[in-house]
């Protein structure tokens, strides 16, 4: 009989946040990597919206290109039956959705996304260097949110203030997005 081999318990994996602590300041615009947040991708038919809104504590927006925010939790309209829910108060929206019995699909994507804030009077110009949408305050007011593209990758854009945007991108694209925005920030300042 073979001797039982003892295997030492592996050390717990170290979690390294993408882009952790990166920052960039240019004239008129500042880029910063935002702290980790809880996120879910939520799909639900019309009939489930009321129950889900109640469970999440934030009314899911029904109008295109809008978002709703309450107590550190933001729901972004992505499609007619699709929302991105971001929670910055460290309360898991996935757990809230689990209690709901009506038809829906909630998928935790907290670690799939990285958020970058773009702040300053040249913020819109910086993002517009790779994003073809109209980001004037009339077309993209405070609270407006949309899935769109930046250069070659897909992002979710949320305007949190007149001169502040939150750019959500996939973790593996975050290096590209941050570098792209850094270059654009330099150009926007020039």
């Amino acid at each position, binding site marked *: 009989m073979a001797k039982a081999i003892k295997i030492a318990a592996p050390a717990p994996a170290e979690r390294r946040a993408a882009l952790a602590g990166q920052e960039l300041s240019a004239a008129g615009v500042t880029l910063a990597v935002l702290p980790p947040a809880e996120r879910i991708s939520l799909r639900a038919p019309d009939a489930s919206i009321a129950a889900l809104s109640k469970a999440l504590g934030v009314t899911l927006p029904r109008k*295109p*290109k809008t978002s709703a925010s309450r107590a550190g939790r933001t729901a972004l309209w*992505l*499609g*007619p039956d699709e929302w991105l829910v971001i929670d910055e108060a460290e309360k898991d929206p996935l757990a809230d959705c689990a209690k709901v019995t009506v038809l829906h699909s909630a998928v935790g994507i907290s670690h799939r996304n990285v958020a970058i804030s773009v702040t300053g009077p040249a913020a819109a110009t910086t993002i517009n260097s790779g994003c*073809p949408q109209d980001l004037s305050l009339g077309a993209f007011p405070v609270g407006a949110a949309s899935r769109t593209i930046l250069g070659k990758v897909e992002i979710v854009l949320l305007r949190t203030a007149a001169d502040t945007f939150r750019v959500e991108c996939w973790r593996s694209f975050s290096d590209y997005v941050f570098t792209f925005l850094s270059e654009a920030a330099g150009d926007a300042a020039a």
Partner: protein
Amino acid sequence: MLLIRCPYCEEERPELEFRNAGEAHIARSANMAGETDDDFEKFFFIRSNPKGIIYERWRHMHGCARFFNAVRDTVSDKFLMTYKAGEPKPAKLPGAAK
């Protein structure tokens, strides 16, 4: 850059957010196994490829991600109108060139 009106986002958005998805209104047979080879070829491979008005499926890939239908003029590359997937072919086209 073209601006394409997404019927789900209810506004015009830049073409970079969209993908073409081929000709629209091609009905798939309910009894695919019973199709003759000729009929299957027509359904699967043969497209109208007109010079002028074409009905196409488009997808707002980097937006709401929805498929919808669009009427486009292949000569001028102008979008005449867009409508939601599942809706019938529009009987009248706005501003269609004769």
